[in-house]
């Protein structure tokens, strides 16, 4: 395999592949708490959910851990906008669902349980005194006949 011919320079396939393996592990490891955050995101009573995607990452980047700002996330036909206001160690969350509807909204924060409310006819909702931390948002859509739950990945707010 090695036709390099440089004495003492025999990089075997295994050596190269092992080196690339260490490259991945040492230079770019997943964040320490990522596994825990995934496990938190999955700790839902019912996993029959649709997964929303965070959008507008430029603004989100500023929000992460920063305390105040607007986040948007979407899943197929639903858009949820969240505005965060930091009040001491807590957050006030102002949200808006599009299309509007009186849907149930839950905010789960790791180690702090769940706050929930229902959006008004205009799709607006407010949650006060939400603890900061690893946060996941759930929206319960539809009626009894066709119930859907949309969840977001967790984000540290």
């Amino acid at each position, binding site marked *: 395999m090695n036709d*390099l011919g440089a004495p003492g320079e025999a990089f075997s396939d295994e050596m190269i*592949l092992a080196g*690339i393996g*260490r490259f991945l592990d040492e*230079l770019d490891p*997943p964040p320490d708490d990522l596994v825990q*955050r*995934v496990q938190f995101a999955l700790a839902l009573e019912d996993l029959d959910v649709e997964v929303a995607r965070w959008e507008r990452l430029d603004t*989100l980047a500023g929000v992460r851990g920063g305390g105040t700002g607007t986040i948007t996330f979407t899943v197929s036909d639903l858009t949820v906008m969240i505005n965060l206001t930091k009040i001491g160690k807590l957050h006030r969350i102002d949200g808006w669902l599009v299309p509007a509807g009186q849907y149930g909204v839950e905010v789960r924060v790791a180690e702090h349980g769940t706050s929930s409310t229902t959006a008004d006819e205009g799709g607006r909702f407010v949650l006060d005194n939400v603890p900061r931390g690893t946060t996941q948002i759930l929206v319960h859509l539809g009626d009894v006949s066709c119930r859907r739950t949309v969840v977001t990945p967790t984000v540290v707010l």
Partner: protein
Amino acid sequence: MTDVQTTEVDPPWEGLTGAELHAACMQAAREGDRRAMDRLVAELTPLVWHVARANGLDRSVAEDVVQTVWLALFSQLGKLRDPKALAAWLITTTRREATHPFGRRMQPVPLSDEVAEAMPSTQPAPEDEAVRADRDRRVWRAFVRLPHRCQDLLRLTVLAGRAEYQLVAETLRMPRGSVGPTRGRCLDQMRDLLASEGGTR
């Protein structure tokens, strides 16, 4: 939210590794065992992470994608019949998420020379450890100079090898028979780069 398990017996996947571990965990997860899900997440999150990063996502976007992929898996666990297909499913889904049309495609993966150079010169270590670290740095410098396709192939070879699946061909959409020869050419190219870099030590 976590159900207390009735007994503290060892889970059925205890002592298993690789594909067998995944299969046992998938089976238990389908029956609602949350510990099995947690175990799979702990086991395979590095794979999902590196695939997301290899597709050019920055770290914070990669974090979201990793979670999205896992949520997607467990919300449709019943559809994935063959546990052997798990790693392939994770890789394919991650790649699809990474290029999702929400305009999330970022700059090419920032694995540059500077990154390789910035690798902390390993802590005081035995002689052979230092030799290995030096050799690794040379390998990394060569690796980042490879064409993207080769980087992808070799990275997946390493990651798939860990997951004990022959799925490089599938995920790179290459004919199975051409993976070996292409990999060989990529490795030879690595050796050329290593040689041209000089510094025979």
